[in-house]
């Protein structure tokens, strides 16, 4: 059974408004790393809020471990399993001390204090913030705050982490730290990740990329499959990493270069090899 299963999902915020999601079908397996991209208004954030029942479908259904988000009695179990991190780090931290912030979730689960303490420590270590346990969150950088927000979710021991543009407001260093943390969670703890982003370089980390446009999934595939269609991606107003676009344009111009090169050295070596054969 997939961890998350979405079938024919339709949603609009108001009866008299347009549909935001128009028939979305999506499965996410345990341990999978899925990236969702799409320009503003494509419906990706609305879809994210569907995954843990912050929103429930008007039509179709969202199942988490086989349980529908539309049924009240499932909601707490679903929210414990699917943790969410949002864009603005300042809106997500609740306590004055880092470790209290992380303990907030587990405390609400009614766990014993020894268990809570252990979970807080584990979570801090995973996100690499153990040195900051006694700090005040507001004195941390944006990237550090996002890692604390992630730690707070981790302490709930979820099966899946949903991140809605967690790096949009961060500088390159903060972005890299957050993405390293997310990758470790996925690879080392086997946690499923659904990551929504505008940064295509982050999408390269995914097992599978979903491209959304006007409330529908319009492209789906591995990074290789998606990025070898540069003109198609541009049609949906998305960015393509410079390197990928360069490789694509060179292959269009007749060079024997594969457009799914994601690494500068790879492209340089390929070009040198081609040149040596002339």
């Amino acid at each position, binding site marked *: 059974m997939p961890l998350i299963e979405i079938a024919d999902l339709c949603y609009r915020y108001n009866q008299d408004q347009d549909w935001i999601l128009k028939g979305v079908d999506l499965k996410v397996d345990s341990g999978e790393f899925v990236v969702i991209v799409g*320009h*503003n208004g494509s419906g990706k954030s609305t879809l994210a809020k569907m995954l843990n029942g912050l929103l429930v479908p008007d039509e179709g259904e969202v199942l988490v471990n086989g349980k529908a988000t539309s049924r009240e009695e499932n909601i707490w179990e679903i929210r414990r399993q699917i943790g969410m991190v949002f864009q603005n780090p300042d809106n997500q931290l609740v306590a004055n001390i880092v470790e209290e912030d992380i303990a907030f979730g587990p405390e609400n689960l009614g766990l014993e204090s020894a268990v809570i303490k252990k979970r807080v420590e584990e979570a801090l270590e995973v996100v690499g913030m153990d040195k900051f346990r006694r700090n005040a969150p507001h004195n941390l950088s944006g990237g550090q705050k996002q890692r604390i927000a992630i730690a707070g979710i981790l302490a709930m021991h979820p099966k899946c982490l949903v991140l809605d543009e967690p790096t949009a407001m961060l500088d390159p*260093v903060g972005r890299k730290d957050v993405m390293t943390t997310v990758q470790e969670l996925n690879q080392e703890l086997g946690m499923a990740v659904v990551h929504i982003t505008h940064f295509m370089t982050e999408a390269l980390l995914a097992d599978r990329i979903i491209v959304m446009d006007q409330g529908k999934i319009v492209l789906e595939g591995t990074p290789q499959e998606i990025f070898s269609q540069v003109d198609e991606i541009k049609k949906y107003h998305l960015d393509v990493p*410079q390197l990928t676009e360069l490789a694509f344009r060179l292959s269009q111009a007749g060079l024997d270069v594969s457009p799914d090169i994601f690494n*500068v050295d790879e492209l*340089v070596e390929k070009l*040198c090899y081609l*040149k040596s054969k002339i």
Partner: protein
Amino acid sequence: MLLEVKNLSHNYDLESSVTDYSLQDINFMIERGQFVGLIGHTGSGKSTLVQTLNGLIKPTTGQIIIDDQDITKTKNLKEVRQKVGLVFQYPEHQLFEETVFADIAFGPKNLGLTEQEVEQRVKNALEVVNLDYETFKDRSPFKLSGGQQRRVAIAGVLAMEPEVLILDEPTAGLDPKTRQEIIAEIVNLQQKTSLTIILISHRMEEVARLADRILVLDEGKLVLDGTSAEVFQQQEFLQEIGLGVPQITEVLMKLKNKDNMIATDIFTIEEAKQEILKLMRG
């Protein structure tokens, strides 16, 4: 010379930390009409520097001379802020009026302009950011999309008709389409009016393509000052200070290092493609 910064240093809290300077002995000049990129990793002093340029921060020592006037000495900060317009990061957080018109008109009204002049300025500013005056003037800024809010906030600064426009990461947090549109609007504005622009950005490929000249800050010091070509030749140094070079520059430089005759001062994909094809076809 429009703007000259001489021996500028700033310490936010001289009493508690005598050595902790956010800016240290910065010197540079900017000519009228230049498009200057300002880069540096977080905490390098970029935002502090631009805040000193429009008088929001009074530097600990040094001079900032704009139009022959040292703004660190002047009492008339209102005039300084009119001359040097600063668009903050996430400027839409500072929208506050009930209508788009009122928000953009707020600054010009305080300059004591007539109603007609104010209206003309709002119209001009909205035109630059591609928002239709009639459609948007009476709408609440809070009911606009993120990209539209960002545009209204930028228009509010443009309506002051500054001589220098400083943009602190004007496209942060926007989706690619909106980002490209806003960048195109800025480029268009600069080409039409030769406005002097200082752009802070974390996107190296954006700065490389747009700026005539790039200033690089590291730990409060100005460590590089040159054209895109000059600055991005220093790949190793830039990486040491937490910055990078655009991916296509990296490709071209690595090709060059392998004994290929190839230009490395290229910042668009189309030109890079042509250059590589030229190399491959001997």
